[in-house]
């Protein structure tokens, strides 16, 4: 009679029992990176494998998921599916996604490979290995999904080099560079916990639901398909934090500081998502405020952090500022992008009357008072034959690298300015959160490659806007105003040919 091992025991034999302690070389030299951060691990065997997925099952289910996804992509391309999007301007959100999110998937792919090599414990190493190749999947499925649109629309053609060069993409790039340049434990808290568990739902779920609502079947399919891997990654994040907290009490303050840092770093990054949800989707699913309340306040603050209290972990520092901003964040950021889209690989436009009605209904306390007047003035400038742009380069936050457009906590009309002098040089920050991050590790943030400063140093193609845009690889019609843009003109032309009755 065959003996049957439990899933847990079998999984353990298939994964973590493969490990052994080296004796021909110094084990410390095999894993050189896991001590300098001050995290103490007494027993790697205490790691609980949350997903007991063996390699053969992994291949089987992933192959099945990709079969379904690529069938959708092929069908969509063959049937000219892009013509049934809600509107061409919907694609601005996907342009930003390809330019700013896809490279992060790739970075995650590369750096989870680092964890898959360098953790001492075989359990987390295997989880990291799976995540590494999952993230490669996400990189490629995003490229392949958006490849169809790239053929017919602007702004998607040069995303890899733009990630390295373009001003607004230094926001996501510096975020991930910050995590990758940190030690292996901080990386895990930064990406697996703070980003994947705490914030990624805000990015993917409303956004992919938005794709579905706007006729973008391929993006919805890849998004949900990627999310099914993401739920494994979230589990890794949660398991990791519990494991580290349980290993040694001395880990608790270190982890708390990382949560504090990475919550704020991640929150500033998702500001780009906030404006996508409220301003870039022609058909709306839910507002930024609603998603924030549901996915962050209800699920994380009232769910997860109650659980972490047990270990002495408190909700992230500066979270009250994030909560206080939920009614203003998306408006401020989109207005900023509207002001600078002459130097972007996407277009922006004044929300139409119906869109403004929706914004008013969603944000009764702030839209009429603060943002309606801006759009009225922008519309008036446009009616007079102009287009409002910020005719200069903005001051950037030294940490998050977003133009310093955020306002003082509790005062949505005063721009927040924070300043530190470090080794004889002034540095500016958009918020208490970013300043606090700088103060912890100024040696790191002085190295920031700030696009505006680099342009002024002459490192970005030349001193004039056309030279910089050429260096950015931005082609005619990629950026600026949507109305009258190449995408808009094509869209109108394609749809002028309405169905006719035979």
């Amino acid at each position: 009679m065959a003996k049957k091992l439990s899933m847990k025991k079998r999984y353990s034999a298939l994964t973590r029992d493969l490990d052994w302690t080296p004796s021909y070389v110094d084990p410390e030299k095999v894993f050189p990176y896991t001590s300098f951060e001050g995290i103490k691990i007494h027993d790697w065997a205490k790691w609980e494998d949350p997903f007991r997925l063996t390699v053969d099952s992994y291949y089987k289910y992933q192959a099945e998921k990709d079969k379904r996804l690529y069938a959708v992509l092929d069908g969509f391309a063959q049937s000219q599916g892009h013509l049934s999007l809600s509107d061409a301007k919907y694609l601005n959100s996907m342009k930003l996604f390809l330019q700013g999110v896809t490279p992060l998937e790739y970075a995650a792919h590369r750096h989870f490979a680092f964890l898959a090599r360098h953790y001492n414990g075989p359990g987390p190493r295997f989880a990291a290995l799976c995540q590494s190749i999952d993230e490669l999947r996400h990189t490629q499925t995003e490229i392949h999904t958006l490849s169809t649109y790239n053929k017919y629309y602007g702004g998607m053609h040069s995303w890899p080099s733009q990630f390295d060069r373009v001003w607004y993409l230094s926001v996501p790039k510096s975020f991930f560079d910050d995590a990758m340049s940190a030690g292996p434990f901080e990386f895990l808290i930064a990406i697996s916990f703070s980003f994947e568990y705490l914030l990624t739902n805000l990015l993917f779920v409303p956004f992919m639901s938005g794709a579905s609502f706007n006729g973008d079947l391929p993006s919805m399919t890849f998004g949900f398909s990627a999310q099914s891997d993401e739920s494994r990654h979230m589990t890794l994040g949660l398991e990791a934090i519990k494991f580290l907290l349980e290993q040694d009490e001395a880990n608790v303050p270190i982890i708390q500081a990382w949560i504090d840092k990475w919550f704020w770093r991640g929150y500033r990054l998702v500001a780009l998502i906030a404006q996508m949800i409220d301003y870039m989707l022609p058909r709306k699913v839910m507002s930024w405020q609603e998603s924030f309340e549901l996915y962050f306040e209800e699920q994380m603050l009232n769910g997860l952090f109650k659980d972490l209290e047990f270990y002495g972990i408190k909700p992230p520092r500066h979270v009250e500022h994030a909560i206080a901003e939920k009614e203003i964040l998306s408006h401020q950021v989109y207005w900023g992008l509207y002001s600078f889209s002459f130097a972007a690989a996407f277009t922006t436009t004044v929300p139409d009357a119906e869109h403004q009605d929706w914004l008013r209904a969603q944000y009764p306390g702030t839209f009429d008072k603060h943002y309606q007047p801006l759009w009225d003035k922008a519309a008036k400038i446009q009616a007079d034959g102009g287009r409002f742009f910020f005719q200069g380069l903005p001051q950037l936050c030294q940490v998050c690298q977003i133009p310093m457009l955020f306002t003082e906590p509790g005062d949505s009309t005063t721009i927040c300015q924070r300043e530190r002098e470090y080794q004889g040089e002034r540095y500016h920050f958009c918020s208490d959160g970013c300043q606090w991050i700088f103060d912890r590790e100024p040696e790191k943030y002085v190295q920031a490659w700030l696009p505006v400063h680099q342009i002024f140093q002459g490192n970005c193609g030349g001193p004039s806007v056309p030279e910089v845009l050429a260096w950015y690889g931005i082609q005619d019609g990629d950026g600026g105003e949507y109305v009258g843009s190449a995408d808009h003109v094509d869209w109108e032309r394609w749809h002028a040919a309405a169905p006719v009755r035979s």
Partner: protein
Amino acid sequence: MAVRAITETYDFPSRSRQELYGDDQLVHVLWKGNPLLCAAATFRAPRAMPFGEFLAGLIDPWAGSDPDYRPGAGRGWTLDGAAFDPSPEASLAELGVGHKSLLTFEA
């Protein structure tokens, strides 16, 4: 608090340090109370540039992004948080405007 790195020294120069701009420097200028201009602007200017030239050559064209702006309309200036009453002839350096100083005005 200092950074915790694997090596004893982890020391890299600022990528925005003044020497990278030769005789010039960066100056941030914020138009307070005008939400149309969402953030302060950053300019590169010679330290020897007279304030009047800085105003007319750099600030005015930028502030003119707002069609309601009239050149030279700025008042209530501050420099790095302190009240500031610049003479148009004095250079930025003479006025104490340093690398990455923040000037603010209202209009």
